[in-house]
């Protein structure tokens, strides 16, 4: 069943590293709103390690899924069969998410700025974009209502870590407050990339580099960031995935390497 990288040894892929780092950040969290892919892997690994009681709520309305196989989409039939509850969209977005029941929301984006605002709508002008992206989906709601948001960005480039967003689809709380509205959560608190981890505490804070992955320098991260990236006084180096973490991830969470590309 398991792929060629089974067990706790062998070279660590970028996906594995991101999953392990994200899982560690979920320590003691109760409810996670996550899409399929790295967030699912991170949540499942967290359940087996630092957050045994964690519940993943999917944008499709599934709560307490117990899939027989790793789901391929947030609406995969295997997520529904055997789940604890399936709720409608009005209940999911209204009562569960806007109602304040989500501790951590996972989001991705084409662009992020230093305050954790996100663009998933367009590259270029909205009216006639050079690239039309999918848009918000539920991201606007996740940012506005989850207590905090983790962003996973595989690619860390000056274009994706933008000084100025081409368009702000999904605003963090700083922009919300400037618009006169007090949000529930603190917005993005962690950005996990192929190069390291950025963090901020909440409203008024800029994202700062707090950790670089093994073999990556602070200067490399700064060069890959579109704004003048600040760093904490003591940037740490990410602890490489422990053999136990890798074993769980490879053998138990995603033995068929659906997402562990």
């Amino acid at each position, binding site marked *: 069943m398991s792929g060629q990288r089974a067990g706790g040894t062998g070279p660590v892929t970028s996906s594995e590293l991101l999953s392990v780092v994200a899982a560690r950040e979920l320590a003691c969290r109760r409810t996670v709103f996550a899409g399929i892919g790295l967030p699912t892997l991170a949540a499942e690994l967290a359940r087996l390690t630092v957050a045994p009681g964690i*519940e993943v709520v999917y944008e499709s309305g599934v*709560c*307490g899924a117990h899939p*027989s196989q790793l789901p391929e989409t947030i609406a995969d039939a295997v997520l529904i069969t055997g789940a*604890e509850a399936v709720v409608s969209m009005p209940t999911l977005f209204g009562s*569960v998410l806007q109602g304040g029941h989500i501790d951590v929301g996972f989001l991705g984006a084409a662009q992020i700025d230093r305050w954790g605002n996100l663009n998933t709508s367009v590259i270029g002008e909205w009216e006639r974009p050079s690239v039309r992206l999918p848009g918000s989906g539920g991201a606007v709601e996740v940012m506005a209502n989850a207590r905090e948001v983790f962003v996973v960005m595989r690619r860390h480039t000056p274009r994706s870590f933008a000084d100025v967003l081409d368009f702000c689809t999904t605003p963090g709380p700083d922009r919300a407050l400037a618009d006169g509205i007090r949000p529930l959560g603190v917005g993005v608190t962690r950005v996990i990339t192929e190069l390291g981890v950025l963090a901020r505490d909440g409203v008024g804070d800029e994202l700062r580099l707090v950790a670089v992955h093994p073999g990556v320098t602070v200067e490399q991260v700064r060069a890959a960031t579109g704004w003048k990236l600040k760093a904490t006084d003591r940037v740490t180096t990410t602890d490489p995935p422990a053999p136990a973490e890798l074993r769980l991830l490879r053998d138990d969470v995603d033995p068929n390497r659906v997402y562990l590309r």
Partner: protein
Amino acid sequence: MRTMRRTVDRTAGKVMSMREAVAAFVHDGDTVSLEGFTHLIPTAAGHEIIRQGRRDLTVVRMTADIVVDQMLAAGCVARLVSSFVGNSSAGSLGELRRRVERADPEPLVFEEYSHYGMVCRYLAGAQRLPFYPLRSYAGSDLPAVNPGIRKVTSPYPAADGSTEQIYVVPPVQPDVTIIHAQRADHRGNTQIWGLTGVQAEAVYAAEKAVVVVEELVADAVIRADPNRTLVPAHAVDAVVVCPRGAHPSFAQGYYDRDNAFYRAWSAISKDPERLRGWLEEWVYGTVDHAEYAAKLGEEFWAGLAVGEALSEPVNYGRRL
């Protein structure tokens, strides 16, 4: 993927006795929602609140009926938020009328809404909205006696280009909501069928939620039909197993409504002495609902027994 199936007890300790749940989640001065629209009324929870002598409660309930009259008579309630204060179609609530009509033995603060006004207050509470709009109350005297009912101007013009106004109600966010249901698992995933009323919204609106069930069932029972779960575990703080806890209302598929008791209540509650005697015998005089149910006797329960009318299974599918 075998690890995804591991059972992790992520909600240890939710299952508790009614005594423990009321002691832990209902405090003097709290706002307590008891919901269940004629079906699955959480009577046993109301009785335990009486036994524990809670005071100064604000009770929120669409249809304030027998259990509310009993809580009023026991002196638990200072304030009532409701849209129907009658004994179903069977008559009056004697204690409620004395409190409202004559402040006897003490005044009752009453916030009067209509049914949908109450529903919208729960919706606003569940959805963390500052208000919820509804097409009721235009021209009613209710806004004059209830300052909670206000108006908002729509930012969109009406079809004829005119400015449109609509009434709104404020959210209700109870300290605790208590509902009765047919069954739940130990995590609190709660399944209800038959009339489902406003229970899910009342739970989501509340700070804490207690679910009282006819049966605690294995996880596999719940998970065989996830669409039947109206209240997911993440919204539930306590699960109390209390068979027959909705009497004199009914639990679809478990026992029928005790219509005779509804009819009797108008007379019982009309006489304060008789009402006091009823409470002494049936609430203060029983240590818990199991004793109350046993006191009614198996012959009585046989009269409310229901036969079988099973739903047909649907296929959720399994990947081959």
